[in-house]
């Protein structure tokens, strides 16, 4: 990487990371390629499918269309920031318990989006969950399991 590439700090999962990249670089590329955080997936690249969802200041963001210059100084949380394989976060655990995955490609987005919903509405209704997940696409058809997992996560948060 040339020395002319600007260097900047990103705050990811509670710690600061120095990255060298053009300010227009999509956040997803930095997360996956530079920081080796592979929870967020590359799907459509246009912010349409939701597989790349991360949290920026607790709000869902489609990281494939968010350039890093827009998130400098903000708190970024990826799937890895919600828990570890040993101790998964409550939403992650609910998805494991309900076997939410078929291929699993969309699950990062599903989990992060539910997390964002819980951040602002601790006790959402089923209707609110459906509304929230409306634009997260799943092509395997595990919608039933995903809804069950989301409801379980809400149930456990009470």
């Amino acid at each position, binding site marked *: 990487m040339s020395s002319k590439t600007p260097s900047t700090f990103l705050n990811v999962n509670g710690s600061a990371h120095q990255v060298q990249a053009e300010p227009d670089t999509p956040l997803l590329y930095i997360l996956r390629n530079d920081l080796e955080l592979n929870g967020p997936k590359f799907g459509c690249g246009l912010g349409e499918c939701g597989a790349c969802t991360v949290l920026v200041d*607790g709000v*869902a963001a489609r990281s494939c*269309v*968010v*350039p890093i210059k*827009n998130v400098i100084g903000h708190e970024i949380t990826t799937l890895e920031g919600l828990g570890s394989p040993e101790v998964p976060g409550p939403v992650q655990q609910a998805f494991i318990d309900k076997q939410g995955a078929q291929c699993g490609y969309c699950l990062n987005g599903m989990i992060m989006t539910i997390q*964002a919903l819980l951040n*602002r509405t601790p006790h959402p209704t089923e209707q609110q969950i459906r509304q929230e997940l*409306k*634009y997260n696409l799943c092509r395997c058809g595990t919608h039933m399991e995903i809804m069950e997992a989301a409801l379980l996560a809400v149930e456990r948060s009470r």
Partner: protein
Amino acid sequence: MTPQAAAHAPIPSIGSNDLAPPPASTLLHGVVLRPPSLLWDGVRYTGSIQHNLDVTSARQVPGVVDVVVMNNFIGVIASQARQAVHARAQVQVQWLDAATPALQAPSMEHTAAAAPRPNSISSDSHVERSYSWPQAGGLMQAWAIAHYAGGRLNIWTTCSRPDLLRAEIALLCELDISAVAIISNGQAGAHGYDVAADAALLSRWCGQPVRVQEDSSAERTPAATELQIRADAGLRPEQAREAATPASQSGNAEDRMGPRAYDYTVAAQRYNLRRPSIAALLCGCEQQAQPVGIALPAGYYPAATQHTVAPASVPIGATPDESLAAAQVFACESFFDELSRTQNSDPIETRLALLDDPTGQSLIRAVRDKANWQHRTPRTGSAATGKGFAYAHVIDNTQEPAQQVWSAWIAEVSVDKNSGLVDLTSLTVGHNAEALQNMQTPAAEGTERLEQQVRDAATKLLRGPDGFDSWGGDKQDTADYPLSLPKVELVTQGQGALNTGLGWNPRAELPAAAAIANAIYDATGVRFRQPPFDSETLKTKLAAAPGSYKKLAYTLLGGIAATVAGLVVSAMPWRSAIAPLASVDTSIYSQAAINRGRLVAAAGDCIVCHTVEGGQDNAGGRPLETPFGTVYTTNITPDVKTGIGAWSFAAFERAMREGIHRDGRKLYPAFPYTAFAKITDTDMQALYAYLMTQKPVEAAAPKTKLAFPFNIRPVLAGWNLLFHRNEVYTPDPAQSTLWNRGAYLVQGAGHCAACHSPRNALGAEKNGKNDFLGGGFADGWEAPALNTLSKAPIAWTEDTLYDYLRTGYSSLHGVAAGPMAPVVQSMAELPDSDVRAVAHYLSSLNPTVPGVETPAMQAARLEDNSRNNPAAMTHPGENLFEGACAVCHDARGGPPLFGSRPSLALNSNLHSDSPDNVIQVLLHGIEDPAVNSLGNMPGFGASMNNQQLETLLSYLRVRFAPDKPAWTDLGKKIETIRNIGH
């Protein structure tokens, strides 16, 4: 720990979990909707009352957690601040003004203050005057975070009295005081009292951490930015007068002077020196605690306490305690001077006679002797110099323990009657503060520094010519006023005990304003009842004197001569070269001039056109597409070879005003010299100073090659003759300074019309009735009409224009994109007052007819229609929209995402006659928004073909602008715009 001790406990170091504010990822954001008329009467809220409130559509905005309504307090909680602001705009509410006399009083006072009252006593028994004081807000927008959890409420904010805030919030949130903690957020120079109370209420409501930031636009109503103080005096009954005459009073003066000031009872209207938070007032909580702040002791103002006046309602402003005390001292001291002078009595002698306080008396005498004060008889206003006296005695309760401060000022001024310029020639300041060990300023201050402090306190009250070309805000930067620095004499008393040198308490500056106002009156007979004392007003008032018409005639003649000369010059096809300079001496330019030039350059967006993408600032080379060919911008850095380093000011000015290169060539009118000609001389000089002191960059710009006949530059001489008026902006005397300032910026440096006005076949701006800012095209984008031809579904107002220009986004219109984004970025350099002026002027071009529907109701109706439009649901574009756009722009629901989510139903571009801007955004997205936090939009040029784009565009038009005809020729337009820049 007692409650008191808790509030004063030192803040533990960062890292302590209890005291670190909640992380940003868990924060919700709150905004509050304030009533249009915010008033209180010293005890309770008396402003507008909410009526017919409907928050349904506000609740539907994605990301909104709740809308909180408590009495007249309306707050919106959402996961992002922008969503909360958007939702607030959708709250439908009517505000009723209770028609009580108490409510009417302040507005009448307001108009009365604007029109000066006759300066005489109407009857011999009653005098009434009204004074106003401008209220400065905090230095920055204050913010607060409140977190209510587990029965405890923690608040992070900045305010001067956390103990009071704590008690008030406990009351407001119905909590025990021990459950409330106020923690400093480290934001210096902000007043976070009100936002803290707002945040506390909202967090208490939803049980999650809520952040509230002070809203700059909401509190900018004129009523809330100045404070009115009314003073009146009435003749006391004979009996009371005799009883009240001090025995020690020497009788000889009485016969000479007739009725004296103390024959009047004075009731300077008092307000509680501290008001509760706005949230508490709106919720209906009445003030419980004793007012604490800076108090005027009983007896400071003679006889004032003997007469009580029912408190009238006053506007609730963002008032720090200090300005309330300053306002009261200004009102009391000016009023005292007015009374004394109308009664032929010397203000100092009268004061000494009436004052019981020996400390004050001795201080006043010392100052009087030091300043060599002679008995002041009433002036006719013919003298050019004058002296004024003012005195203050306050109890400063903000100190621990409370501290008394006495201060007396004598100001001497000399006034230039032609220009109205006030020169402060001398200041004599006496100061006595007890309890020196508690003073904020170390006692060992040097005299020089104190003198400087006195000068600063005094000179900031004066204002030079505040015309349309004054660059507001940064007075320090551009100050060419006052003319000279005053001589300062200090008299300090009561400080001998410590023997550590001079001490100073900022409260000693309280009488400054009144002393200067009284001195100006002494010199001119003109009474200022509101600071700052500006030379323009003084000049206008003095101009009533005979002889002043000469200057006006001269100005008119000069203007005509300049016009004629301009025409003659423009008609000459060839112009001579102005000899290059080997080097320009830039050392003669002051930092103030360079700073001013920086603002002119920012207003003119020089850098936007004169910088090629990724290139060095102002080094030129950017291609501008015109209907006649591509024009490349030039290097305007002071490089001698390739830039303007060899240009004298004469050459620079000729280029700016007449469009002629230093070497005599005509410049193409893509360079908007037609607008720049309106820039005033001072600004032009400053701009030159700024550009010539920047870093030179050696970079030769590509040559511009246009097709015949436009490549023959002398042809342009004819163009200039036809279309160019080389005239500096002349203010419209019928309009306000703000309007003229806006017009000057828009028509001059800002050259808005260059893009936003239609052009004729020869590329000149048309000049028909509605042509000025009637909409144009630039760089493949439509620059929408800013006048009555505007196609915006909701009419632009001053406030929405201000929001749009300041933040790049208006929730009722959309974001600044395309070539407008860098304009907003460049304008970020300008002070708020200038952006406000531009918004004010532009909104005046677009007169709105007040309808039954408020903007919020319009917005809700438009969005509702777009949700339930049956024509859209069966349109073939629905699938495309659902797949590509809806995740961010769905008006029917969906998750709130990071960044702004402009409502398409309110978007001006979708309502425009031409689809160009929508096509631009769909193809290329918004990669470089005006402000990063607005978020990006990806371009769909690579993932959708022209047919799909056409279907989508037609769908967008049907769904979001159903009352507009379908766009035609979409295919061709898409093809053309796709190929621009490729």
